[in-house]
């Protein structure tokens, strides 16, 4: 067979429709094979958490006639709150997940406070260390991305992409062909099976039974203890004084008909002991809630919360997510916080 054709003798010549039908057929065949291979190896599809995905959710705080119920925080909320349960059981609200793994949320709170179009309710997952001023800026680059980089083009692209990633493994960059070629050339084999999974609305689940939870707990403890050495807690007076702008942000949101509830989620074992040592509750958290006249709740004050097992002493396993969310919201309602 010749690479070039100099005449139109071939039956396919210039029949572009047939050429494209055959090409599409073969391409789809290869992609189905590729997808099936990874499924047979036990992998599953998951949306990739990126700044664009966060920005897409951030833009959704205006998109419903219902009042937005925004979740700010870090991994404990991202993996702990069951968005499906909220959607089915808190129907007066439109839930939006803006918590970011490993990032304290104060800049996202500030952004929503400065956004005059926002009038929803915010549940802020945070502890006293996260309220400390040096930890305020962690989510700033997500906020900047939303305002400066997230275009209408990205909005549509990310909307379609997250639905594809939710269904097809090969749309995840980790399973892309170049990534696999590079892994294979450097003898790394196939990617590890992730223990976390995310949906287009950033509803996430964390399977803590497939990982070494003790090692995770040790790791979190080591990070916390090192951070408390590197960044010791400021005096309670200084700490509270730094939080004055936060009170203004909350007041701004309330003035527009919204609300803000600070929530300190459960942490057990050595981590909570260390945390309480660094930031004693009565000097920090309780002072913040009472002196600033702010709505807040500590998980240890919620009856029944102690029954949840946190395998890594810090996070809710996805099997407990629904019960945990229900307990939290039943309590918020009972205490007239929501």
């Amino acid at each position, binding site marked *: *067979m*010749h*690479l*070039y*054709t*100099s005449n139109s003798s*071939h039956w*396919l*010549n*210039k*029949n*572009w*429709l047939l*050429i*494209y039908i*055959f*090409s*599409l057929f*073969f*391409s789809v065949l*290869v*992609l189905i094979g*590729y997808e099936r291979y990874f499924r047979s190896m036990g992998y599953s599809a998951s949306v990739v958490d*990126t700044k*664009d995905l966060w920005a897409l959710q951030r833009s959704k705080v205006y998109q419903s006639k219902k009042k937005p119920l925004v979740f700010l925080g870090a991994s404990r909320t991202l993996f702990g709150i069951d968005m499906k349960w909220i959607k089915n059981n808190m129907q007066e609200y439109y839930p939006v997940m803006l918590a970011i793994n490993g990032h304290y949320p104060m800049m996202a709170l500030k952004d929503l406070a400065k956004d005059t179009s926002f009038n929803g309710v915010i549940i802020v997952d945070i502890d006293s260390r996260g309220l400390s001023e040096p930890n305020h800026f962690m989510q700033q680059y997500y906020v900047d991305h939303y305002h*400066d980089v997230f*275009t*209408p*083009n*990205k909005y*549509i*692209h990310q909307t*379609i*992409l997250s639905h*594809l*990633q939710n269904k097809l493994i*090969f*749309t*995840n*960059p980790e399973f*892309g*062909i*170049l990534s696999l*070629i*590079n892994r294979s*050339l*450097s003898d790394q084999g196939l990617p590890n099976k992730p223990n976390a999974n995310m949906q287009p609305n950033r509803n996430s689940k964390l399977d803590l039974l497939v990982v070494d939870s003790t090692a995770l707990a040790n790791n979190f403890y080591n990070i916390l203890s090192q951070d408390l050495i590197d960044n010791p807690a400021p005096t309670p007076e200084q700490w509270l004084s730094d939080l004055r702008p936060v009170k203004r942000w909350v007041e701004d949101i309330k003035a527009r008909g919204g609300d803000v509830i600070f929530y300190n989620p459960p942490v057990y074992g050595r981590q909570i002991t260390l945390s309480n040592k660094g930031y004693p509750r009565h000097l920090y958290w309780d002072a913040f809630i009472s002196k600033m006249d702010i709505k807040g709740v500590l998980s240890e004050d919620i009856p029944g919360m102690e029954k949840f097992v946190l395998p890594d002493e810090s996070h809710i396993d996805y099997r407990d997510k629904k019960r945990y969310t229900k307990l939290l919201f039943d309590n918020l309602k009972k205490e007239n916080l929501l």
Partner: protein
Amino acid sequence: MQFDSLTFVVFFAIVLLAYNYFSSWQHKKNILLLSSYLFYSAWNPLFLPLLIFSSTIDWWLAKKMSKSEKGKRKLYLISIVFINLSILFYFKYINFFLDALNDILSGFGFVLGKYEFNIILPLGISFYTFHSLSYCIDIYRKKFEPTQNWRDYSLYVAFFPQLVAGPIVRWTQMREQIEQPRRSSAEGLGVGLTLLLLGLFEKVVLADGVFAPVANQIFAENNVSSVHAWIGTAAFTGQIFCDFAGYSTCAIGAALCLGFRLPINFRNPYSAVGFADFWQRWHISLSTWLRDYLYIPLGGNRKGTLFTYRNLLLTMLIGGLWHGAAWTFIIWGGLHGAYLIFERFMKKTTKYLHFVPYLVIVVFSWFFTLLAIMYAWVWFRAESVTQAASFTLKLIDLNAAVSGFSMISAQYKTSLYVFFIIVFIHLLFKNISFEELIKKLNPIFLIILISFLMVFISLTPGGSNAFIYFQF
């Protein structure tokens, strides 16, 4: 909007359907103009009024200019150039200019203070400004009469395939295409979609998938090693070509699907033998623009050797500055100016090399051209003059580069091999365009090629990364 986004897939499908649904050419053109503005707004709707204002004022002033007598005619031209360059200067160069002025004045003991305007650069402003300028200057030169139709002129400037990153098309290339009815044909769609896929493959798989991760990693290193400097240079040489030529190929393909023909912008540039040859193969629409509206008006090669050298250097320095407001771009332009001067000088001396076989001279010239171009890309990519200078020192240390090669990662090696393949393809198809190739290809190979492109594009997922030339 970007060609490599899923948004574009949806947008283009709708545009193709709507464009072919109507039989009236006027309706088709209205659809094209509206979709072009939509395409532009998908990046930042706030800058659409600037695009409309800029094209409207140029269209109106060009009409006035064509009816005016000599003195007034010149005044109109000066106004058009002033307005266009002022807008470009404000958005693109004001901070750079103030910084440079500050540096100069502080050398004399004056302190101007730190002025920093927080300005977002409108997408494609350098491209559509050059579109408009070429139209107005050609009317001033009485090459053609201005169009009386605002919609036609606006479509010429804003036609979405080429709006944000070229090719920089002349009115003479588009006038007939805009004024005479056209439609999508089966061959246009077939070849156009295949070009679109090829362009996406260059951008998504090669530029973003293979080269960008390596180039970004190496150019972010604080103390780069010699071997990394060489690999980073090769990776960026591959990335900039695949990114920009990929965009141009997509643009030509998308236009072809709609029945329009845009001029070729890249012709296998890494096969160039000599620097003049390189500029006839790289970003052809910009180099011909600079030739016609800058180099020739400056005097070209008509006023003797020294003036020719001055004109070459000035043209390339301004070409460098067009790319961005940074000293690294100016030095990149200056390097290319120096290369062109050196080449002219050397051509006079080759007559003394008659004892060397012609093939040896050609091969040596090709290799030297490629190396010099690769080196110039270091300045184009570097974050600062200091970084480029430190890269230069590392590139010189060839012994360290060769001895360090065995230590590099598989990903770096892959990018190097892919770069060699691209150079080989450029040499193999030196004077054949993709379009010619596609038309000549056996249908079975075409099916294999299209399937290969589709599969690789689908299996190289990532974010929708901006094309490098969008920032210009």
